[in-house]
Structures are given as structure tokens and as C-alpha cells.
């Protein structure tokens, strides 16, 4: 699968951001998929920490294991080997029920293809989350945060891609999650729309203090981050600290 096996794993030094406590601590994360007779090593022993309030971008070529890593952190998938601790709690020991509870209380997901429920309006898609959370925003409030108050009764099919993605972000942040995990949120969008979506994510990170991880192929988006993790061949090949975060609206590409 990968010919990057020679590249040395880069240990993410906790010291760099030592002032904030770690939300996630992942150690030795390995994920192997069995496809027919072939074993696909999606992750080959990843060590990584995410810190409270930080904005992390995961960069890497297609197939490098970005989605796999994010899904495991968010409790949507389980690793073949290794551990993930969330505020010290070992997620890898959790069963499906506990992982569901973890996602329900702490994680907001945003996906490349928005994944709204087509039979529910924007508002109802958000209600889907707020109805089962302990301390959610009002759905209208969440829509407000993504600037879509006037579209609350529209069905996904009546919204543009960018608008759908903003509804998806509103849905993800409405529960006031501890972490917001976005898998290529702008992958299907044009530049201008992409920036509007990124602004919404940025705002959630800033105003709610949500620890945010965003996957992208687009190196320019990395400018927004506190920290950039580079993945290749199922390993973190590089870590970069931005001394200055560039706001989404100032990105150019």
C-alpha cells in the first residue's frame, strides 16, 4: 500500500503546547483492514495529542489514513491496536454503547458530503442533535452561528452545498461539543463557499473554545491552524506549529 515505510515517525512533543491539558492522547494507533487476502495498513502506530481549545489541521495525500485517525479519535471506529485516552479515559476499552454515549456528549462531526438527513429541514436536522443532548443550544441559535437563520425551514435539497455544510456545522456544534472533528469539510466546495464554511468552524473554535480538528488536502487551509499534522502512509510524518493563525477570510488560493 505504502512505500513511505522508510520515513521515520515524528513524535509529537507535548512540551510545545504544555500550557493546555490534553483532550486526546493517542498512543501506538494501528488500523488494519482486511480486504480479501490483502491487509491494508491504514494506520501504522500513530502517537498524537490534541490539546484543549486548539485548532489542528491534518494534511496528507489521499489514503494516508487521515479519516481513519479522525474516526478513531471520535469514537466512530476502533483501532486494531493502540490506545486513545480522552481526558485520561481509555476509549479503546469502551463498548459500542459507551462509545455512542461518548459521541453523543462530547463530539461533533462534520463530513465532506454534509450528510444531512434529506427528509428533515435545516432546523430539524439540528433538532436531531439537541433533542438528545444535555446542554444544547437552541437550534435557532446554532443556525444563527452559521448565519443561516433565514433558511431554517429549507430541506437539504433546497440548499446549496455550502449552505448544507454550514447546517452540518451548526448541527455539530449545537450540542456544545468538547471536540469538533471535520473530515474535508470544504472538499466538495468552491473557494468562496469553502471560506464561508471555514469561518463557521473557526467561529465555533473561537467562541465556544471547542477543540477542533480539520482534515484537508489543501495546504493553504493549514495556515488557520495552531498546529499542522502531516500524515503519510499511516504515520505522522511531520508536525508544524504556526506562530500566527491566519483568519479564514484572509486565506488566498
Amino acid at each position, binding site marked *: 500500500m505504502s512505500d513511505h515505510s522508510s520515513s521515520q515517525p515524528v513524535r509529537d512533543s507535548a512540551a510545545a503546547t504544555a500550557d493546555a491539558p490534553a483532550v486526546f492522547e493517542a498512543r501506538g494507533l494501528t488500523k488494519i483492514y482486511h480486504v480479501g487476502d490483502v491487509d491494508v495498513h491504514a494506520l501504522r502506530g500513530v502517537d498524537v495529542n490534541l490539546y484543549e481549545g486548539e485548532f489542528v489541521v491534518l494534511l496528507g495525500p489521499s489514503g494516508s489514513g487521515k479519516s*481513519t485517525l479522525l474516526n478513531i479519535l471520535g469514537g*466512530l*471506529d476502533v483501532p486494531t491496536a493502540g490506545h486513545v485516552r480522552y481526558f485520561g479515559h481509555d476509549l479503546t476499552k469502551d463498548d459500542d454503547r459507551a462509545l455512542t454515549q461518548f*459521541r453523543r456528549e462530547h463530539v461533533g462531526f462534520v463530513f465532506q458530503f454534509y450528510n444531512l*438527513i434529506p*427528509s428533515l429541514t435545516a432546523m*430539524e*436536522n439540528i433538532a*436531531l442533535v439537541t433533542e438528545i443532548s444535555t446542554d444544547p443550544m437552541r437550534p435557532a441559535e446554532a443556525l444563527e452561528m452559521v448565519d443561516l437563520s433565514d433558511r431554517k425551514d429549507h430541506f437539504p435539497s433546497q440548499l446549496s452545498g455550502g449552505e448544507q455544510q454550514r447546517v452540518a456545522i451548526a448541527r455539530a456544534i449545537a450540542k456544545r461539543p468538547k471536540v469538533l472533528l471535520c473530515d474535508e469539510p470544504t472538499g466538495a466546495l468552491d473557494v468562496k463557499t469553502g471560506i464561508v464554511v471555514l469561518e463557521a468552524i473557526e467561529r465555533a473554535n473561537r467562541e465556544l473554545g471547542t477543540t477542533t480538528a480539520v482534515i484537508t488536502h489543501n495546504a493553504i487551509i493549514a495556515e488557520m491552524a495552531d498546529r499542522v499534522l502531516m500524515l503519510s502512509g499511516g504515520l505522522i510524518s511531520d508536525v508544524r506549529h504556526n506562530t500566527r493563525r491566519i483568519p479564514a477570510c484572509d486565506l488566498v488560493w
Partner: protein
Amino acid sequence: MSALNRKMLRDLLHMKGQALAICLVMACGIAIFVMALSMVDSLQRTLDTYYDHHRFAEVFAHLKRAPNSLARRIAEIPGVSQMQTRIVQQVTLDVPGMAEPAEGRLISLPDQHVGALNALYLRRGRFIEPGSGREVVVSESFADAHRLGPGDSVTAVLNGRRQELRIVGVVLSPEYIYQIRPGDLLPDTRRFGVFWIAYDELAAAFDMQGAFNDVSLSLMSDASEPQVLRHLDELTEAYGGLGSYVRDDQLSHKFVTNEITQMRVTAVVVPTIFLAVAAFLLNVVISRLINTQREQIAVLKGIGYPRREIGWHYMKLILAIMLIAVALGTTVGAWMGSVLTEFYTQFYQFPVFEYGLDAWIVVMALVVSTASAVAGTLGAVWRAMRLPPAQAMRPQAPEVYRPTILERGGLQRFLSPAMRMIVRYLERRPVKSLLSCAGIALATSILVLGNYMEDAIDYVMDFEFQRVKRYDLSVSLVESASSAAMSQIRHLPGVMHCEPFRALSVRLRSAHRARRVGIMGLDSHGELYRVIDMNEDVIPLPRRGLVLSRKLGELLAVGPGDTVTVEVLQETRPVREVPVSGLVEDFSGMSAYMDIRAVNRLMREGDRVTGAFISADPDRMDLLYRELKDLPQVAGVTVKAAALESFRNTIAQNMLLMKTVNVIFAVIIAFGVVYNNARISLSERSRELATLRVIGFTRVEISMIQLGELAVLTLISIPAGLLLGYGWAALTTSAFDTELFRIPLVVDRSTYAFAATVVMIAALFSGLIVRRMLDRLDLVAVLKTNE
């Protein structure tokens, strides 16, 4: 309402066509279930109450004549709780407004009939008063058929004398809920009536003072039926006893319970078929729904909805469809029940027949349909619950296709690309395609079954009334008579041809098996009543030996070459060993045929007859009837044409009803299966078809692919369905193989044609709907969806 429930409702609305189709199939099953069970329940309850309140007897016996002193000894049989002795006489009736004679059964009523067994229910008028002359009360069905009531009279020939019977009341009896003349297939209310008359009157008319010829008993709860029967037979033997029997063998009771049993079978078999089809359709539709919603399910899981909530979400959708079906089915079932009740009151006479739908039946319907719906969808819902969310987010890999068996066999040359798409698609989902075929085949077979009943009854009617019985009239005499009586009949006006018969009440015995039947002694070269097989080949009646109904042979476990013991229950009551020379397939009752001379030899008597078959001059019928009504020796006259007509009238009406219901049900199944199948494959292939459209295929061309699949499925299924229908017919034939009646396994070609046509029309109709949907296929939208 929660957002998730809202999604459920919108999903339901989105698939309303398919949901409706499933609902209808399910509702059919539930309707039959509710109808049959409520009918069984109502009938059984009505029957029990009636029997209980009117003290319907448990043991019956007829004899020739016994002094009343015997009654005391019968009452002393251990286990007997109550006893009733009566006189029962067969008479001919002259009813105003009817040319041909009717047959009447006169039954004596004791002066003190309150509290007696077989109590009558007074519908109109009053009971007879002691010593008031020839007052009678008459059975309601006969009274209604002739518009008779209190104050009217009929003329009866009592022991050779014409007598007026004055009707004072109209009654019902638990003995005659199904008022049928022995040997008939259906009640003929115009030509058979039962009358109750004071004992003294009847005794005087038939010289039976101080005597009786009929006994009914009720038993104590700990009594042994076989022992009572044995005792009773011993006591009555010297008095011409015809053999005692229990309630289960009482004619009216047998018909009613037979009906209840059939309803019970219906309540199980038919709903099973419909609910199985509905479960299959639900499975297909829900599996598809869950497949298309993979990503939605993944998102719900991602958001934090637990498995059971996702499972419950889909279950609610299924249960909603089911609840609508149950509501619809129960309503229709209750309605069908009340229609059927109406219909039953034509055949079964109850004082009150109250149709009721008990709550437990609705609960049962709910339980049964929930079970089938859940069974059909549990797998799909379980898959939704178990769906790994991370994986579900990834775009699905293209489905794996491969060349089909047909193509691998080197036949691809003959298949167009469109045809290849169809065949590959069908072959890739073998189970689904197979089940779809099974569904269409099932619909076809139900249609075959529905029409088969009609074919069979047509056949029986033709066989019985045209091929076997070729006479116009059958006349039975009060007692066996010499051949002089024959020549008297032969010389009646209008008689063109006349053949004698001698009927004999016997008990046939083979080892421990025994049956009470009548032996019919026929002229072996006769033309008016022929013993024939289904190929219309005459079965010869030998000089010695019996030809038995096939069913009777089975019950006695004898065949040609075996010997049975014939215990004659009349006159000198000889007991003889007689060989069985053959078995014959016949359809009503159980018969034993013998050459009339053999019967007479068996009785060690000369030329004796008990009746005659007559072919008569149609122009002189009325004259003949008039003469027959006055002949003292004549106990009864059966007019074939009249019997045939009444049979036809009742049956035709019922057949039409049954056929309509059958067609509706079969069309619902056919349509449900074909339509759902077409919808699913359309949804699975809309991308593919849209792509074809984009690259330049025309609407007609892509319709060919979609409709071609439907056509292939339908064409494969129809022959299978016809075969299956024949199988159902065979099953029905063996299910109806009873002592009372049987039906032959004959399926007309037109039945097959009808079934195939109806299914093809249903398929065509679904095809048109699919065609319309294809025309509206939104190319851009379809290609945009990421599935």
C-alpha cells in the same frame, strides 16, 4: 414530535405506493384471519348456546317399531340422563303452488314437550294444542320457501290417505340447523320440510299407537358413549333397529361442524400465505430503504443515537405500515364476517345468529401480523443497527457483476446488451429474484385455485346430474313392494321408461371397522342410474358382490377381492359375507352399489323393490305429479331438474362471491409483488439508467431494460404459478375428501388461461406505472446523489 419521528413519517410518505401495496396484501391476510376466526367463534358460540338451551340429544337411533314398554328399558341403560321416544314418518306433500310433490318428515311431539330433548324454538304462531286435531308446526326454512305461516295448510299423504295439516306455528329445531334430505348435497328448502304433530295424531295415522320408531338420548357426563350405543343396539335389534349413532354422526350437526372445521383451516392457511408474501415484500422494501439510508444511519450513530434507537426507528416505520394494515384488515374482515353471516343464515337455521368480533381475535391478528412483519424485517433492521458508521461513510464500491450462467454457457451471442443487463441483474440477486417469482407464482396459483373450485363443482354437477343420474324422477316407496308395484308405476301417465331399485339400510363391517350406509340395488343393465368412473366407463355390477365408494372402501380398509360383512338392519336382518368387486369414485355421501337381484338374493326374497327411477314425458309432468301425490305407497319423489336448479342457484351465487374475492386478493398479491419489485429495481438502477440516458439512450431503450426485467420475471413465474395452482387444487381435493362430500381434481384449461391473463394484466399495469416514473427520471438529480 421528535425530529427522528418526523423523519420516519416523511420516509413513510415518500414510499407510500410501496407501503400501500404491502398494506393491502397484509390486510387481505388479516381480513381472512379476522373473518374466519370470528366466524368460527360466532358459529361455535351460537351452536353451543342453541344446543344447550334446547337440549340437543347426544345419541340417536331409528327402528321399525317398538312398544313404549321398551322405552323404560332404554332409559335404564347406564349413563343415560334423559330419553325421548318419537314417531318419525316420511310423507309426500302437496303444497299449493307447486306441481311436483315435496317430501315431508313428520315428527311426533309429546303432549308435554316442555323440558324434553330436541326442544323446538317457536318463531311465529303457537305450539300445537293437545287434542286439537291435525295441527302442526313447520320448520321455518320450508315455511319461508313457500310463504306459509300460521293459518295456512298443506296436504300430506298419511299412510295412503290425503290429510290436511293445519299450520299453527313456525319453528326451528336444533336437529335441523342444516335441513337437508339424506343423500342431498345442499338443502332444498322448497322440496323438503319438517313438521311436528301431536303424537296421538301421528300414531293414529300410521297405526303406531303405544309404539315409537325413533329414540334420542342425552348422556351423563361420565357415560361411556360406545357402551350406551352397544346397549341401545342390543335393545332395539329385535324391533328393527337401524343402528344407533352419536351426535358427531348426526347429519345436521355434521354439516355445521364440518363448516366450522373448514373455517378453522381457512383461518390458518390463507392468512399464512398472505402474511408470508407481505413479510417478503416488507423485507425487500425495508432492506432497500436501509441500504439507501446507510449514510444517514452512520450520521445518526455519529451524532450519538444508540443502536436500539436506530433499530426502533425503523421498526416504528414497519409497525406503522402493519397497524394500518391491521386496522384495514380488521374492518374488512368484520364486514366480510357480517356478509358471511347473512349468507350462512341461508343454509343454517338458528333462532338468533349473532355475529360478533371478539377483542381477542383483534389481539391475535395484531400478534400474528406483528410476528410476521418483524420476522420479515428483523434481519434488515439488525443490519442497520450493526452498521459500522465509519465504513458506511465511505462511498460504496461498485457492485460486483459477472457474466451469468447463460453467458458463460456461450449464449452471450444471442443476448443484446440490454438483455445482458437484465439477466445479470436478476442473477446477481438470486434470492430476491426467486422470491419475486414465488410471489407472482403464488398470485397465479390463487387464481387457479379460485376457479378450480368452480370447475370441480361444474364437474360434479355434470357427473351427478347428467352422467350418473339420467332419470327425471326418483320415487321411493313406503315399504318394499313386489314387482306389481313396479308395473303400476310403469303405467302412470307420462312415464316413458322406468327402472326399479331396492335400497337397504345396512352396517358394513370389516374387522373392527364399521359404517352404516345404504346399499343401492340397481338394475345392472339400467340406463337411468349408472355406476360409472370418471372416464364414464360403466362399472359392472356382478351377480354377487358390492361396488363401494372409494372413500367407503378406504374407511373400511377394503378393496376389490376383499370381503365385507353386511349386517342388514331391516326386515329379517340377515348377516352375510359379500365380496367387494370394485371401488368407484363418487362425490357425495358414501354409497354401496349392488345388482338388485343380488340384493334380493341376499335378503332371500323374490322380486322386491323400494322405488323406481323414471324418465318422463316433459309435456305430461303435471299429470304424473298429480298421480304420484295420491299414490299411498309413495313415500317421496325427487325431481332431478328441480334439485339441479336449486343446487345451481345457491352455488352460482356463492361461486360468484368467492370468485370475486379471489380475484381481488390475487390481483393485490400480483400487483404488490410486481410493483414493489419494479420500484426497487428502479431505485437501485436509477443511476445506471440515468447514465445511459446521458450517453444517448432513448427513453424507450431504457424502458426496455426495466420493463424487460419485469416481463422476464412474470413470464417465468406464470407457468410455475399454474403448476402451483394445480398443487393447491390437489391439496384441496384431499382436504375435502370427507364422508359427506368430495371434489374431483379437474382443472379446466380456461382456468389456467384466466389466471395467466389476470396476472399479466396486473404486471402490465405495474409496468405502466414504472414507465411513467422512468419518463420522469430527473437525470441531473439522479447523477448528483452520492450513493
